[in-house]
């Protein structure tokens, strides 16, 4: 680098740029947090949905599936599974319930979690709530996720 561009100038760009854009990020975050009230489907976060989310977490479902495109890529996207399963929580529950304990020979299979009826309902309600989140361009692109 040429001598006209000094170390002091580089340092000022670092401090100035770093602090400035950190503040911008904080500002945009404040704005985002207020705006998402119209998209995040919060009116449907019931106690059951919260319980379902906790079950989603403590069984590490995201270790195989993606949810709104984030997580693992080993098993199908689940943010729109409610729609894919014909808008039926019963179908979701039936699927989870019927996984064979020892898997399917030669194929990827989902573990049998032995959920209670109440837990199944909570999980299904959680997935229904996620399906109701309004994403830009209605992502996922189609029903297959």
């Amino acid at each position: 680098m040429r001598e006209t561009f000094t170390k002091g100038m580089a340092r000022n760009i670092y401090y100035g740029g770093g602090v400035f854009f950190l503040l911008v990020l904080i500002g945009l975050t404040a704005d985002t947090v207020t705006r998402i009230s119209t998209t995040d489907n919060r009116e449907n976060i019931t106690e059951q949905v919260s319980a379902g989310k906790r079950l989603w977490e403590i069984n590490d479902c995201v270790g195989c599936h993606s949810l709104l495109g984030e997580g693992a890529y080993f098993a199908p996207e689940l943010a729109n599974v409610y729609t894919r399963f014909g808008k039926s929580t019963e179908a979701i529950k039936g699927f989870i319930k019927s996984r064979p304990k020892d898997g399917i020979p030669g194929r990827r299979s989902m573990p049998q979690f032995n959920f209670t009826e109440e837990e199944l309902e909570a999980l299904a309600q959680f997935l229904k709530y996620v399906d109701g989140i309004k994403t830009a361009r209605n992502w996922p692109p189609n029903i297959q996720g």
Partner: protein
Amino acid sequence: MKYESQSIAKMYFIAAIGLFIGQILFGAIMGMQYVSGDFLFPEIPFNVARMVHTNLLIVWLLFGFMGSAYYLVPEESGRELYAPWLAKLMFWIFLAAGVLTILGYLLVPYATLAEITMNDLLPTMGREFLEQPTIAKIGIVIVVLAFLYNIGMTILTGRKTVITLVLLTGLVGLAVFFLFAFYVPDNLVLDKYFWWFVVHLWVEGVWELIMASLLAYVLIKVTGVDREVVEKWLYIIIAMALISGLIGTGHHFFWIGAPDYWQWLGSVFSAIEPIPFVMMTLFAFNVVKNRRREHPNKVAVLWALGTAVMALLGAGVWGFLHTLAPVNYYTHGTQLTAAHGHMAFFGAYVMVVLTMISYSMPIMRGKKAANVNAQKLETLSFWLMTISMSFITVFLTIAGFIQVYWQRYIDNPLPFMVVQDKIETVYWLREISGLVFLLGLIIYVYSFFAKGEDVVEVVKDNAVTS
């Protein structure tokens, strides 16, 4: 080695390499499960293998960063480490917490682990990369705080250099952003938004500061170039990292229910995120070209140059590939994401830690550089790992394209599992590349034990000593 306490780095590096081996073994298990779904089922379900793989990665990189700091900071600061005993104590606490967490994943079902560790009191488990039980997360915070105190005091009571100040800023940022791991709201949009404050602001923010300062340090040591020159580069690289990377976080806010303006902001700012990586490459090649000494540790120079190039490819090129919103609409959460994740983590953070180890380990073992045979083997392992990782990336990229085409692009998209079956051959090729990577790693470990003659030092005309 100028100061006794620098040698604490050695135990950190040994632990890092040990956990690295574990990480790759579980990577190979998952690669197998991708082609043969019932492999080790139900004993090791995919999600468990994945937690082990990614958590080991993060933990060993943290060991690597800490070891690097313990090695570099005393020398730069011109004094012994503030509290060597604390560094040793924290090593054992961190190792115990790490190993117990991994054993927990493997020995009991995850839900049981959540119950035993009383996740209900402060639920933080079950999010990607942040699966550790809450108590383990608290352990990480304690270890990192003790570590920051230790090197912070060493820096502040000693000579302050640009390298140590940048490193310290990066490490403080690492600690601060980790705190978002404790915020897990029921509202999924908020949950996802702030989850990225750990993941993105780590790898595309503060970790870049750590990476750039470590690279700058090793390059000064092995090339003998003027500190002034290096410092100017360092400032401008990290300036660009923050200017692009902070708002660049927006490339993760396209499809999670956040406002539409993120599609513009995220695309534009993340599109300039490759710049710091381009500059790191220019910087590394420039200082090596203008070197004022021939350091006998040739392989350390190779690692340093390799880091810059592979980070540019993995983060810069493969990141850019899917960072614009109209492209990301199709590629979000596909094998393309995994392709990028692998090469970026490897090229930037794995390789910078291996660079530090390569430079410092021989010195801690009493020599300026490893012997001729050891360097040959290490060079071989460099190429095996780098090339096989490039192949993994290419195969996953092909897998991603196939997936996007059949599952997202065509008019009558096919179901996920149907598309996965079409990709089987490519997944086999990925697994084979993974086994070559493992071979490279085995040779790498073996190189530390190889015997041979010392490298003969060639002194350049204008060489400076030490």
